[in-house]
């Protein structure tokens, strides 16, 4: 894994994804409203002053319409692990699509936790 400062990386990704949202992007105020936090909090997440929790990041990804792992640096093995989960979830064809989506999000949450924990040590 490349040596990345996790806090700075995540901060930069939040800003990039916010600016790239839809066609026009979102203001910090708009994103704050969507996530249910103050504009100051968004600003501090984007400058790396505050470190968002995993739950904050999960909610941000959900509101920005991206995968949670899009907020983190890419890892070599990630693709094959994601494919394993995808294959298992495809086999779960009796589940509702919304439940499959939630299981996929949870699988990403677990991956994100291991990356976040690893880099903060």
């Amino acid at each position, binding site marked *: 894994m490349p040596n990345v400062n996790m806090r700075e990386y995540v901060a930069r990704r939040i800003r990039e994804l916010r600016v790239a949202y839809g066609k026009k992007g979102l203001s910090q105020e708009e994103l704050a409203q969507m996530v249910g936090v103050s504009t100051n909090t968004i600003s501090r997440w984007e400058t790396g002053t505050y470190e968002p929790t995993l739950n904050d990041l999960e909610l941000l990804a959900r509101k920005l319409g991206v995968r949670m792992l899009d907020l983190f640096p890419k890892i070599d093995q990630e693709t094959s692990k994601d494919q394993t989960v995808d294959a298992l979830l495809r086999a779960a064809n009796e589940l509702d699509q919304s439940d499959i989506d939630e*299981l996929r999000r949870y699988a990403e949450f677990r991956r994100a936790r291991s990356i976040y924990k690893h880099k903060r040590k």
Partner: protein
Amino acid sequence: MLRTEYYEQLKALARETRSRFNLVSPRVLRSDLRRIYRAEGVRIDLWPHKLGHLRGAYFNDALGPTVMLMKGLPEDSMVFTMAHELKHHLVDRDRSLSYCDSSNQSNPIEIGAEIFAAELIYPDEVFRSDLEEMGINEGQCTPEILVRLKHETRTTLSYAGLAKRAEFMRLAPACSLSGVRWKKLEERIYGIPFYKTYRKRK
């Protein structure tokens, strides 16, 4: 292996788990399950987002065993789901992913998890002897009896679970306990609980 043998083995495992973790009553709480999960090294994640039919899921891969549980489930459902997912950890941990919802309950692995969970919370034999102590034998169990049993034992096994078992063990006639409005019946017998009257007064 025959299905019945498989299910009996799961019941034996549930009883062994009860004795290993000193669960002595039919009132198993989520704190008891948390204690077991901690001892087994399984991480619990309460999932705060809306789920459809899904109540819980068990994952086990290189990241270690974790259980996702729907946040906000009532106590009885939460305990049952935790017990259900515990079976997946103890027995099916090589499957990487197991989930529990209302659509996959005809699968023997899932039926096994339901049987394990029910036995872990309230073993068959204890259930039978509690009913016998109330003077109830084959075919005599009524909805009112089950409400009294749940009230007196304070078991966390749901009414649906108790009813299914009473019919399966032929303590109640087949289909005699389906479609019962258990909470209404409970309120008719024991009165409306204080928290409900308090809420109404407010």
